[in-house]
């Protein structure tokens, strides 16, 4: 449909957003939490419920009367965590339902694929969970925006903490999921830890389909390494961590030090899956629901969001939920400020946008690569959870300056943002 | 014990002794093809009945129906064996009730040796002839007891099929072309055996293309044509009746 010079220009009194998340497959749980957040965001945009982070958001353009006076509708789809299926689902949202913005995803491969599609179709893509450097690095697109942090930022935030906790004389052994996200995260962590004096003993790529990691863990025992870095996510991570614990790595002493395990990308949903094994293990997060309570009002918005979400669903939101909620609000806000749904106008409104009150502290949507810059959390599996939701404890909130990098940083080089495409 | 209805008056032959196996108004289908079209006949204890007819007349279908195999489906009719209603049974129950069928394509079980094929027959009671006795009857099988059954020569397989039926303690033996593929000497041999077990009280139905041989052995004959009975009488009668022989048996 083409009116108004851009794809899917809303004609009636409603506007449709597309939420494309994994509803089946190993990331379904993340996907469902994302969906919950989307639903909540739409409610808040339409003036239902308590308004959540709309009340704390620094931009006051949104007023609860939909977007530009149009009521917000949404459609959902299942990415199945497959690039193909995700593209098909996104296409149907665009072609059939007339969605004007697509959000969601929980794997970098999928995010990059859908982002490419949105670029071609002339739709704004507000990435959900995607942590690979490539999403806003070599695969960045003018129509795509990422609120979530990335592998480089995780590494930048983690390295000093690791240094503090485990010292600068460490020998790290990496196990890495054999795909884009794994590769970029491993590269980032290796670079950051080596910069502070660690040595990288080994990096072994593991097939994504692996379920039993024992044959990758066993060689760690006698490798002389004293840190194991698990560049795994989801089921992979739960299993590799479980296996590592089974092999007694956590009780092991090497080179006179305690053997340590690091999981650079953390999530409370994974922590839940990993159970006891996650206790004391350090990693990084984009956000945590206890942030405002524990780290102060810099992270305003957090409590408002937790309250809306918790009251609706009965448990606190995950970082996946928060990022998707924020993305939806940011999109709506940008449209309102731009006064148009035209993707190019929206992109312009988002580029270089500085905001606060969405739970992450002051944040910048950098124009050069459409990556958000904000504080990064270093977290650790809680030793004695206060309740069933406090699986993760915050170690530190790394200030944004420390995780910021130049747009032309070599780890992000290779692609061009291109020009915004309004489609039609 | 179940009570057997008296069908005997309907069978077109003089009743002398009570029937041992009765088939009453049996209709059988293969899917939608109507094959056996309402046949009734009786067999008396210790009698040999020859079931004759051209290719495709429905002889095999009749035997399979009596043995209660899943295919063909018997849509209507009753089958009684020694006061037991076979028509209400599944094939394994019919077998337990005393029915033994030697199927036309022998159906030696692949993957089992000769001996296993025989042992298999003795898993479910009642058990009949011992293996030794069977090997005595068919020495060739004894020699080949460790060989896989399906690699036997055609004739040897036929022997195994017959032996397998005798390995169970049966009351009625249904033979579907037992002489097929057998050397004349062996046919003589089997014929002798059949006479022998008849003397011991075995009731037998034999389907055979070699009608003359079958008739010489049998007490009575039933001739089938396109699924219906066209003759039911004594074997001698068929041998004498030129026209009958010419029309239905081409002999």
């Amino acid at each position, binding site marked *: 449909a083409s009116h108004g010079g851009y794809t899917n220009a809303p004609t009636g009194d409603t506007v449709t957003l597309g939420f494309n998340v994994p509803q089946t497959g190993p990331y379904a749980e993340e996907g469902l939490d994302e969906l919950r957040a989307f639903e909540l965001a739409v409610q808040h945009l339409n003036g239902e419920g308590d308004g959540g982070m709309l009340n704390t958001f620094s931009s006051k353009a949104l007023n609860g009367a939909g977007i530009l006076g149009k009521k917000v509708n949404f459609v959902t789809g299942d990415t199945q965590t497959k690039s193909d299926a995700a593209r098909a689902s996104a296409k149907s949202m665009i072609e059939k339902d007339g969605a004007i913005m697509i959000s969601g995803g929980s794997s970098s491969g999928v995010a990059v694929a859908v982002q490419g599609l949105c670029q071609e179709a002339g739709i704004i893509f507000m990435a959900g969970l995607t942590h690979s450097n490539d999403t806003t690095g070599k695969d960045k697109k003018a129509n795509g925006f990422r609120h979530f942090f990335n592998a480089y930022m995780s590494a930048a935030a983690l390295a000093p903490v690791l240094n503090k906790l485990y010292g600068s004389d460490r020998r790290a052994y990496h196990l890495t999921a054999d795909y884009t996200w794994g590769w970029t995260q491993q590269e980032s962590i290796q670079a950051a830890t080596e910069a502070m004096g660690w040595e990288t003993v080994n990096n072994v790529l593991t097939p994504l389909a692996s379920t039993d990691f024992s044959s990758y863990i066993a060689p760690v025992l006698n490798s002389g390494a004293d840190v194991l870095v698990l560049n795994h996510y989801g089921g992979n991570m739960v299993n590799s961590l479980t296996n590592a614990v089974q092999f007694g790595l956590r009780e092991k002493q090497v080179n006179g030090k305690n053997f340590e395990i690091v999981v650079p990308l953390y999530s409370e949903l994974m922590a839940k899956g990993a159970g006891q094994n996650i206790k004391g293990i350090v990693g990084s997060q984009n956000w945590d629901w206890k942030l405002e309570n524990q780290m102060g009002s810099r992270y305003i918005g957090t409590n408002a969001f937790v309250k809306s979400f918790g009251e609706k669903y009965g448990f606190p939101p995950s970082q996946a939920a928060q990022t998707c909620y924020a993305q939806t609000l940011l999109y709506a806000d940008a449209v309102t400020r731009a006064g148009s749904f035209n993707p190019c106008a929206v992109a312009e409104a988002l580029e270089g946008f500085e905001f606060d009150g969405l739970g992450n502290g002051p944040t910048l949507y950098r124009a050069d690569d459409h990556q958000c810059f904000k504080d990064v959390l270093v977290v650790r599996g809680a030793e004695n959870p206060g309740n069933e939701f406090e699986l993760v404890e915050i170690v530190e909130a790394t200030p944004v300056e420390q995780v910021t990098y130049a747009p032309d940083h070599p780890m992000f080089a290779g692609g061009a943002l291109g020009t915004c495409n309004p489609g039609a | 014990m179940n009570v057997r209805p008296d069908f005997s008056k309907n069978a077109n032959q003089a009743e002398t002794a009570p029937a041992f196996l009765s088939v009453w108004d049996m209709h059988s289908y293969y899917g939608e093809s109507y094959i056996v079209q309402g046949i009734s006949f009786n067999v008396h204890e210790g009698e040999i009945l020859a079931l004759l007819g051209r290719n495709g007349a429905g002889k095999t279908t009749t035997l399979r129906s009596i043995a209660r195999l899943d295919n063909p489906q018997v849509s209507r009719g009753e089958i009684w064996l020694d006061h037991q209603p076979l028509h209400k049974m599944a094939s394994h129950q019919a077998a337990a009730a005393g029915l033994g069928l030697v199927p036309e394509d022998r159906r030696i079980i692949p993957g089992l040796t000769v001996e296993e094929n025989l042992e298999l027959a003795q898993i479910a009671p009642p058990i009949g002839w011992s293996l030794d006795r069977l090997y005595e009857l068919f020495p060739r099988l004894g020699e080949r007891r460790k060989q896989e059954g399906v690699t036997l020569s055609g004739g040897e397989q036929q022997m195994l099929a017959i032996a397998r039926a005798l390995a169970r303690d049966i009351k009625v033996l249904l033979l579907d072309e037992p002489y097929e593929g057998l050397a*004349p000497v062996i046919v003589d041999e089997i014929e002798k055996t059949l006479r022998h077990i008849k003397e011991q009280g075995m009731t037998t139905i034999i389907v055979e*293309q070699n009608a003359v041989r079958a008739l010489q052995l049998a007490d009575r004959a039933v001739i089938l044509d396109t699924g219906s009975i066209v003759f039911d009488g004594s074997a001698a009668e068929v041998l004498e009746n030129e026209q009958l022989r010419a029309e239905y048996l081409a002999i």
Partner: protein
Amino acid sequence: MGILEVKDVGKRFGGLKALSDVNLSVRENTVHAIIGPNGAGKSTLLNCLVGKLIPDSGSVMFDGQSVLGRTPYEINQMGISRVFQTPEIFGDLTVMENMMIPCFAARDGSFRMHAIENMMNEKEMVEQAEQMLIDVNMIDKRGMHSAAMSRGDKRRLEMAMCLIQNPKLLLLDEPTAGMARADTNNTIDLLKQIKEERDITIAIIEHDMHVVFSLADRITVLAQGTPLVEDDPQNIKGHPKVREAYLGEAH
């Protein structure tokens, strides 16, 4: 020099000597019968001729060329067709389609792709096939699913499929077993007729002495894997050894 020359062929199955020192010469344009007790090795010998088995020793020459080491389809393409002891037909196809396949094999050799030609447009072949079906008295079954036929019919179909290939040598393994007398007689006539009309040699295994003595020009008696005697039918009939080992008293 015969069209088929079997020299010193031997074949063992494990410890069992199924064939040893078999010498056989089949002259062109004759019907050569191979008879013998069950398990004598007749089918095994046939298997060695068509490439199903490879003999351990000896040679098999057909039409001046060795068949050993060739695959079954190559041997068939040389002009040898075989009817099996248990019917081997294309059960999922109709009778007519069954007939068409050998027609194409005869026309196209062992492989040729006619992916967009319409099968039933091959008028000439269709007619040929129909004629053959008429000859074997099966034309009324042309559209029938062949798996659903009675066994006698399957036999006839298989024979028709072999005959339509116009083989130089036709190998028949008990072609009339299980066939009704009438059809057996028809088959005898058909084979005789074919032998007269065409340039064909037939080797036949049969336990039905009526068939053997009606057709055979020459008979080899096989026993325990070796030829016992080879002679004219007249002499075989009276041969004492043959009577004892095979024919029994009745013949």
